[in-house]
């Protein structure tokens, strides 16, 4: 089958491409970039994408699919559908499932399940056995089975000694250790410590809890030469520490979530548990520091930390409700509305942070707009105004604090693995 993407602006900073050109795709392979003939247009299904960007397929490197274990909240399939609807062609999933992703068997199970779907799922395996922080996981085997990184996400790798081991070992295949940075002894709280936790009377979680682990990890990355990726960075100080580390060429990268660059702990005033996540929402100063970090490259990527929870679990006493929100379907819209349209970062940077850099960190190839390449792309309408409506979400869970929010910018089509997601449907191409 032949399709043509007409009049879109091809934007791929990885190939220094920013040009309006038509794409001819046949059986999922790019056959022509520009210079299409009348015959091509006659024999193809033509999609008019005037005013839209066509970028290498978006990649979210921090997603919690609940399979195996909590298929009532999300499955590999529903999470992948949500990813496609959000504009992603590839995602990496975190290992805190039940059981944890700490055996080759489970890595293979996930790879197998994602095979037929447009969205490719790359498993991040546990860094330690059962994510207990006692001994490193069988990384060679996990890597061989298809894991692309290692993490104990949900918690920090417990001790500096185990972290040292994990970094030295994972160095052998250049895979990153992805750290959820939180000092366990300081982390019994439910919201950021500050004037708002004082007013709301919720147990506080001080920002220094994150900073202490970030600096520990940076120093350990320097010492071992291993590769550390800081997940969901949320504090001003942590951004400064990563900036400091990068200046010293320490092998550290970082990601930020849309909620950490759009919301503050002021949002907790009504005790809505859809604003409860870990790391917690911080202050306006932290938000500003994260945006600055995204702008100057200190923060390499944007990731959702998509964390589905059932309504029953989320609608309960604030201190008992689980942490986390879903994010795949609002991520791009928030990034475009809050960062691009507010002129904080450029469209090129969006592509870097949502497509190119996550792949570089995980040593995966960046899709190119070149003849003979597999079509793996996202079409973005930067000016489409839409209202978030969780009831229409593809995700099985609905725990989003952004319901009813007006956003500007949305993915209108994604193509990968000879499939296209367009106008709410998957089409074989």
């Amino acid at each position: 089958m032949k399709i043509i993407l007409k009049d879109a602006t091809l934007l791929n900073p990885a190939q220094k491409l920013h040009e309006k050109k038509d794409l001819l795709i046949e059986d999922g392979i790019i056959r022509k970039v520009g210079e299409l003939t009348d015959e091509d247009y006659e024999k193809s299904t033509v999609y008019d994408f005037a005013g839209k960007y066509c970028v290498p397929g978006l990649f979210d490197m921090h997603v919690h699919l609940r399979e195996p274990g909590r298929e009532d909240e999300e499955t590999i399939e529903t999470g992948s559908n949500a990813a496609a609807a959000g504009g992603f062609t590839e995602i990496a999933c975190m290992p805190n499932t039940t059981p944890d992703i700490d055996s080759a068997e489970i890595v293979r199970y996930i790879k197998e399940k994602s095979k037929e779907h447009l969205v490719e799922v790359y498993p991040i395996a546990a860094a330690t056995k059962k994510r207990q922080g006692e001994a490193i996981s069988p990384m060679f085997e996990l890597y061989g089975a298809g894991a692309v990184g290692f993490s104990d996400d949900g918690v920090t790798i417990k001790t500096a000694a185990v972290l040292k081991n994990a970094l030295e070992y994972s160095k052998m295949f250049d895979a990153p250790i992805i750290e959820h940075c939180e000092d366990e002894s300081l982390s019994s709280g439910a919201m950021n410590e500050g004037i708002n936790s004082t007013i709301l009377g919720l147990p506080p979680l001080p920002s220094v809890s994150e900073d202490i682990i970030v600096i520990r990890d940076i120093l350990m990355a320097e010492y071992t030469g291993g590769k550390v990726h800081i997940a969901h960075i949320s504090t001003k100080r942590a951004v400064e520490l990563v900036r400091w580390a990068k200046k010293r060429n320490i092998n550290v990268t970082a990601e930020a979530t849309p909620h950490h660059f759009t919301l503050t702990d002021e949002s907790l005033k009504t005790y809505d548990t859809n604003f409860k996540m870990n790391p917690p929402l911080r202050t306006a100063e932290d938000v500003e520091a994260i945006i600055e970090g995204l702008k100057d490259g200190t923060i390499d990527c944007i990731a959702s930390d998509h964390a589905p929870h059932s309504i029953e679990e989320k609608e309960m006493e604030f201190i008992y409700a689980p942490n986390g929100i879903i994010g795949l379907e609002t991520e791009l819209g928030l990034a475009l509305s809050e960062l691009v349209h507010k002129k904080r970062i450029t469209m090129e940077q969006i592509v870097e942070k949502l497509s190119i850099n996550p792949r570089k960190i995980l040593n995966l190839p960046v899709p190119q707009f070149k003849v003979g390449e597999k079509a793996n792309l996202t079409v973005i309408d930067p000016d489409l105004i839409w209202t978030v409506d969780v009831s229409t979400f593809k995700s099985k869970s609905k725990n989003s604090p952004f319901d009813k929010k007006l956003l500007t910018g949305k993915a209108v089509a994604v193509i990968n693995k000879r499939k296209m997601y367009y106008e709410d449907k998957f089409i074989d191409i």
Partner: protein
Amino acid sequence: MSLSSRHLLGLYGVPKEDIQLILDTATTFREVLERPIKKVPTLQGKTIVNLFYENSTRTRISFELAQKRLSADTVNFSTSTSSTKKGESFKDTVRNIEAMKVDMIVVRHQSAGIPYFLTRISKANIINAGDGLHEHPTQALLDMYSIREKFGTLKGLNICIVGDVAHSRVAMSNIFGLKTMGANVSVCGPSTMIPVGIEELGVKVCKNIDEAIKSNDVLNVLRIQLERDAGSRIPSVREYHNFYGITSERLEKNNKNILILHPGPINRGVELTSEVADGPYQIILDQVTNGVAVRMAVLYLLGTMN
């Protein structure tokens, strides 16, 4: 005159006029409590549920008595923290109660924000009887009532809250309410017990108890909640008592006109010596009596709104 909100979730942001109205109404009920027949038919036919997820005999009895004095029908639902540890059933419990057509819910719970959650899942008027470390507005209102009874006003008074302020919902409600009413509020205690950012609320921090006694008209002395792991924030109860305990000697040396409040129950020999707890400076039992009148006022004002 009526209140601006149909719930009492806390005192943060509650307008001065509302607090004034509650305190004035309480004065009327205080007189009722001195009559031989201490009952009025004001809330006849109203059903009130006391939903207590935390043990608190004092507050519950005070509310119950206030409800009976107003002729309301009351139902008590008490459960220990442990039996609903995970809390899955909270929403179901409330839905069940809601189905019984109740008019008001008085709630105490260990999780801050529960009264807000209740307003989203119930149509009843909600009264916060203490939620986590957030607020305990009726306790603060009765403290304010008791102070006003003594001084005739709250405006311009120097009032210091002493003890584990950071882990006290009573303290926070007092701070919010007193600030609104124009009092000069300060807090005194070891630094580990002073809430983060409290100065941003216009509250002064005092580290020395003798200073606090000297420069204030009223001390509201908090209970050191040993059960809420106060132990991790102070090295020992003995050390706390030595540096922050209120003794007769300290009062006599620094300020003979001071008024001492305590929300109870008292840890004698910790935050107050027995001599002070039973002595001439305190009005602890008045607070208890006033508590019933203030709760009657709140129940009456909310219960007759709709």
